């Protein structure tokens, strides 16, 4: 990251290759389509590039990336909400995109995550899929470790209740 700040093109390319799949998966876990996740990833890298000077050497880098991804996601959500509010209701609503069928191995990840509220979903995605620590998730989501633990606990309770039916 420090080499990226010093305009080392190789370091920037390595970062893009290494971090993009994680961020893309994070966006996909937020119940967006692949094409939408591609757009969000591009927006995120533009924001990362503009804000690269705000990373301080020695600080954990993953929370910094995820915090920017989260800002992009929130901005996108607000933009979508504003657009939806401006649009008039249509008589026939489009059918929701069909989910792939369950496999015999059990429920898939998308199905599990899509049943959770937004705030719990992002915490679970960072903790369980990106493998971040509680402290890193707390930093990325600008909350406390206690709040992250509580959200993860509630998410698990919800998933257990849903899957136990």
């Amino acid at each position: 990251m420090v080499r990226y700040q010093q305009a080392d093109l190789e370091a920037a390319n390595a970062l893009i290759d290494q971090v993009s799949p994680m961020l893309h998966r994070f966006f996909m876990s937020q119940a967006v389509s692949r094409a939408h996740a591609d757009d969000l990833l591009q927006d995120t890298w533009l924001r990362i590039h503009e804000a690269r000077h705000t990373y301080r050497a020695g600080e954990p880098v993953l929370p910094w990336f995820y915090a920017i991804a989260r800002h992009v996601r929130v901005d996108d959500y607000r933009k979508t909400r504003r657009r939806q509010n401006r649009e008039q209701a249509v008589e026939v609503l489009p059918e929701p995109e069909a989910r792939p069928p369950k496999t015999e191995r059990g429920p898939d990840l998308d199905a599990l995550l899509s049943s959770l509220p937004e705030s719990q979903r992002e915490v679970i995605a960072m903790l369980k899929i990106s493998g971040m620590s509680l402290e890193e998730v707390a930093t990325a989501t600008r909350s406390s470790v206690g709040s992250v633990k509580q959200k993860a606990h509630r998410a698990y309770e919800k998933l257990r209740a849903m899957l136990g039916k």
Partner: protein
Amino acid sequence: MTPRDIDEVFARAAASEHRVDPAVLQRIRGPLQSSFAPVKPLARPSVYIAGFLGAFALIAVSLAGVLGLAGFHALTTTDRVVIFALLGVSAWASASAIAGEMTPQGRRTIGGWTLAITALALIAVFGVLFRNTGFQGFVLQGIPCLRAGLVTAIPEALLVFLIARRGFSRSPVAIGTLAGLTGVTMLELHCPNLNMSHVMVWHVGVLVVAGVAGWLIKRL
């Protein structure tokens, strides 16, 4: 299904490779390479906090110095310690919030409730310290104080904004709160009117107006 089963689903997902379309990665590299230059990382938060507090003290004291320090001389030692300690702590909290907001992962910024708590704390302190009541010349004496406080708040807000804009995002409510506190501090140094209602409404009013202005800017 047990938590372990759920963990297994997540572990499988985490272990599986997630690919991004190479064309997307190429589209990301394009604009980045066209504006590639070395950047100087942000200084430590303490440097910015010190800068914001320095501007707060400098503007409040220098403007009060120009207008006269009659307010400071009218206060007892206890009044001075309590009032300026509260103003200092509130200014430090606002400055910390602004510095925190300069990085993407900075802690939660000051919101409307913090502004309300700061204003209420000041009102409570003034209510305890000042006993003079009455509404004689309430508006006539109040308007110049409100105006002087806001005139003090404006350069502080502009200066802090100019420094903070280098960061990831700005915090207009925190900037408004710090600017308002600068105005209140200047008034406590300058205004010799120790009437409780005057101080509670017109001095604290500077903080409220500046904070609400920041909140409105944020909503735009």
